[in-house]
């Protein structure tokens, strides 16, 4: 369906090629996942498939890209519109109309499809993606998950044979992501659509993939299909592309979800990709971790959910138990909000939230899209709307402070970090920040280097990836060593390595006594970093407790390791590694 033959692509003015000598063929009806670190050319590969690269982006393409028998060299994107449907990274940016049904029909209108057929196809797509309740609504009034499904629907109505998606679940909460993926899976299974998607959060999609294209930073691609089924295929090479199952690809991938890391640690062969498969082989591991047969454990799960009930837990949880203490002991809190409310007209975003965040504690704020997380963070910071209640940061109300005073006590990294950047080079931003914070020369730059190593300081911040810009803004905000650090979705656009670096930096700040309060949909990141989890629903706190208890007890927010090892209360692969290391 999609075939790339010796494709090399270089953007105009770029020194090195993004993709080098890529040869791969993706057969019809396959769900193919593109895996790679930030900046490894995932988006470029997607754009090559519908001709946006190079027709729209410019750049130098050598080799041939064929989609459904059409060469993208001679067919510009608009002529491929009937064959390839595209869903971009930000669905809102791609909307061209203002209503859901108009948006669904747009492609068909451009293709000149007769009105009765158009009507019929819109209805079909509405049923397929469950858009019935929102079909007449304004696009801007939808939640992120709904917008994403509308964007997929809008690409589908023209009945393309290939669907290309760039990070379809990155902005979504876990359940909305499941919904979108279920819809995609249905397309692949029922309609035979070939789906090509890039996604950072592999834990969400790897189990559904039939094949994996692994992009390494140097621009070469390796492709694997599940149909090969054995790891032996992993070493077969066709030009610069490798073919093997996703499991085989994952064995050597630098970028890997926790389930794969756990599989590598436990030495499972072949690597399981779904929770179900992993649980089937995880029995021996559970026994090793507890020293008891698992069937007895599963009989009495309540016994195991407590922190102290399993000997392994009390042993391995050394790093986090220190923080758990801080919850119990009455220490002076860094941030206290009492009865905080935010109303937008008749909409209640935050409804009487009372909350304290203690020094040295990393607290994660979770909840579905639109549950009031961002409103709460902005209200805590002081510059957001606050309809009622009080906030105190080290005894002061941040709303009464001037911005330059407030930043010494409380900082916020918003969802769109690029808004904070306005100078024309990374170096200039760093110097400006050093001056403003009264920090040593190069302090900001040093933090940035830790978060995102090897980035040129002379380039414009806009030239960097989303993740790199986020790292820069984090550096700017952290350099003043504030008492309270608020982060709104800090993992968008970050790959696993970048998330690890971010965790390390945040843990350091917590250690020096800062209170870190972050909102996130990223279950795995929260499991890695948070001491405490607060779950928000419709503006109210519905759960507030230690991360280990809240995350393992939840069906939606449980991380992969916890799902695999349930009823044991392990959250991350590192937890398991520590426990195994400590076990005899």
């Amino acid at each position, binding site marked *: 369906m999609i075939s790339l033959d010796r494709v090399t692509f270089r953007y105009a003015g770029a020194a090195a090629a993004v993709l080098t000598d890529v040869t791969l063929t993706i057969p019809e009806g396959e769900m193919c996942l593109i895996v790679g670190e930030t900046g490894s050319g995932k988006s470029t590969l997607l754009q090559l498939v519908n001709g946006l690269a190079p027709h729209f982006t410019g750049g130098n393409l050598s080799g041939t890209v064929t989609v459904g028998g059409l060469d993208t060299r001679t067919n510009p994107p608009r002529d491929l519109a009937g064959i390839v449907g595209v869903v971009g990274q930000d669905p809102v940016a791609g909307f061209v109309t203002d209503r859901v049904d108009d948006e669904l029909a747009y492609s068909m209108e451009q293709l000149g499809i007769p009105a009765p057929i158009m009507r019929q196809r819109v209805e079909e797509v509405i049923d397929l993606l469950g858009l019935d309740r929102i079909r007449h609504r304004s696009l801007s009034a939808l939640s992120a998950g709904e917008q994403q499904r509308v964007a997929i629907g809008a690409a589908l109505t023209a009945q393309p044979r290939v669907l290309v998606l760039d990070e379809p679940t990155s902005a979504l909460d876990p359940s909305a992501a499941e919904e979108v993926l279920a819809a995609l899976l249905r397309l692949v299974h029922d309609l035979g659509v070939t789906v090509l998607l890039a996604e950072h959060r592999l834990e969400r999609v790897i189990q559904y993939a039939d094949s994996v294209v692994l992009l390494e930073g140097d621009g070469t691609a390796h492709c694997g299909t599940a149909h090969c089924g054995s790891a032996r295929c992993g070493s077969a090479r066709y030009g610069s592309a490798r073919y093997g199952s996703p499991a085989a690809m994952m064995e050597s991938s630098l970028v890997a979800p926790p389930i794969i890391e756990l599989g590598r640690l436990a030495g499972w062969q072949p690597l399981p990709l779904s929770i179900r498969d992993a649980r089937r082989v995880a029995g021996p591991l559970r026994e090793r971790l507890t020293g008891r047969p698992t069937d007895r454990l599963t009989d009495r799960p309540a016994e195991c959910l407590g922190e102290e009930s399993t000997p392994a837990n009390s042993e391995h949880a050394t790093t986090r138990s220190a923080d758990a203490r801080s919850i119990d002991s009455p220490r002076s809190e860094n941030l206290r909000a009492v009865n905080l409310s935010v109303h937008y007209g008749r909409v209640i975003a935050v409804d009487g939230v009372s909350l304290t965040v203690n020094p040295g504690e990393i607290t994660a704020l979770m909840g579905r899209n639109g549950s009031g997380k961002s409103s709460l963070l902005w209200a805590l910071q002081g510059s957001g709307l606050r309809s009622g209640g009080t906030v105190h940061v080290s005894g002061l109300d941040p709303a009464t402070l001037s911005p330059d005073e407030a930043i010494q006590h409380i900082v916020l990294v918003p969802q769109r970090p*690029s808004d904070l950047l306005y100078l024309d080079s990374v170096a200039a931003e760093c110097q400006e920040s050093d001056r*403003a914070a009264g920090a040593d020369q190069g302090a900001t730059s040093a933090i940035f280097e830790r978060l995102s190593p090897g980035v040129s300081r002379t380039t414009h911040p806009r030239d960097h990836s989303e993740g790199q810009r986020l790292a820069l803004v984090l550096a700017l905000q952290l350099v003043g060593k504030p008492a309270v650090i608020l982060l709104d979705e800090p993992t968008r656009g970050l790959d696993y390595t970048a998330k690890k670096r971010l965790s390390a930096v945040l843990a350091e700040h917590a250690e020096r006594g800062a209170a870190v309060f972050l909102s996130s949909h990223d279950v795995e990141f929260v499991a890695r970093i948070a001491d405490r989890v607060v779950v928000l629903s419709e503006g109210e706190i519905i759960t507030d407790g230690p991360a280990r208890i809240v995350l393992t007890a939840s069906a939606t927010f449980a991380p992969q390791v916890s799902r695999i090892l349930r009823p044991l209360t392990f959250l991350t692969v590192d937890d398991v590694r520590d426990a195994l290391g400590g076990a005899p």
Partner: protein
Amino acid sequence: MLTSAARTTPHSDTIASDLGSEQGVARGKSLRTLHPVAWWVWALGIALATTRSPGLVSSAILIAAIVVVVAVCHQPSAFSRAFPAYLALAASVVALRVVFYVLVGLKTGTDVLLPLPSIPLPEWAAGIALLGPVTISGLLAAISAGLALAALLLCFGAAVALTNPQRTLRSLPASLHVLGTPAVIAMTVAPQLVESWQRVRKAQALRGRVLRGRKAVAATTLPVLQDALERSIARAASMDSRGYARVHRGSSRVVLALLLSALLGAAIGTYALLDGTGPRWLAVPLLAFGGAAAITGSIIASRRVATTRYRPDVWRVRESLVATCGVAIAGVVLVMPLLGAAGTGFGASSVAAASGWSITFAVCGILAVIPASIGRAR
């Protein structure tokens, strides 16, 4: 626009209206609004009338009719929420007109209201005097001129508030569809710029620096413009990959040329119709030529474009009634003076003349307010 679905679910409309507008839009089917062209015909009819308004009372009647219709018939949307802004703009037009009259207006008449001293200006500005005695008749003339302009402004405000401009564009002939998408996007850009301006201002306060002067403007403007540019590139990529502007039969240049001549014709025709001061003998042929050019141009151009419309708005009896009101207003205003019936109805009393009362415009006002009873979304 929702006919076929309405047939299958006869109760959904009632349910939607029972739930109140907000939930009705959110959950059930959206209410059936009038065809946008009907509202535009209505508004243009009134616009034509405002240009012939004899004075204050007549303009006020038209403005009152417009406000009533918008208040009754509007649907909750960003565009209808903009109507108060149009009202404010209209009020400021009147106020500005009065201020200019008091400051530099030509003061004639004897019925002095406010005896201000006249300040003569130097030689090079001969003929203009600052201030001077304010007369009642002069003030009335200024207010009625301001009101006429305000009424014209409100006609367009009402048309925008009552119709979703994006739906209006969808009702245009096929040849104009290519222009439709960019126009829709252009309309979403302004609110987006405001939104991203506010967002960037808020975000930069987070950095703890209070920037002032040129630096502050640059610091906010650059990210906003970069953001706008990135968005438009993303949107262009999306349009391109969704088949926008696919090459259809014939050359796009011919289509463009025909389109331009059609637009030019329409503009000339409209001008001829609206400008009451131009010579009559010129107006009719210009109108005819303009109309013919517009129709021919779009018919030929439409044949070469192969896009289709998804569920176009339907024209029914209600639309015809509303449009008839507009046409009737235009007809009354144009025909009455020719019949010599432009009299005020009170004879030629000076008060009536000064206030701008006219039986013609009372009729127009009634015609203009009729859509309030038939134009509600159902």
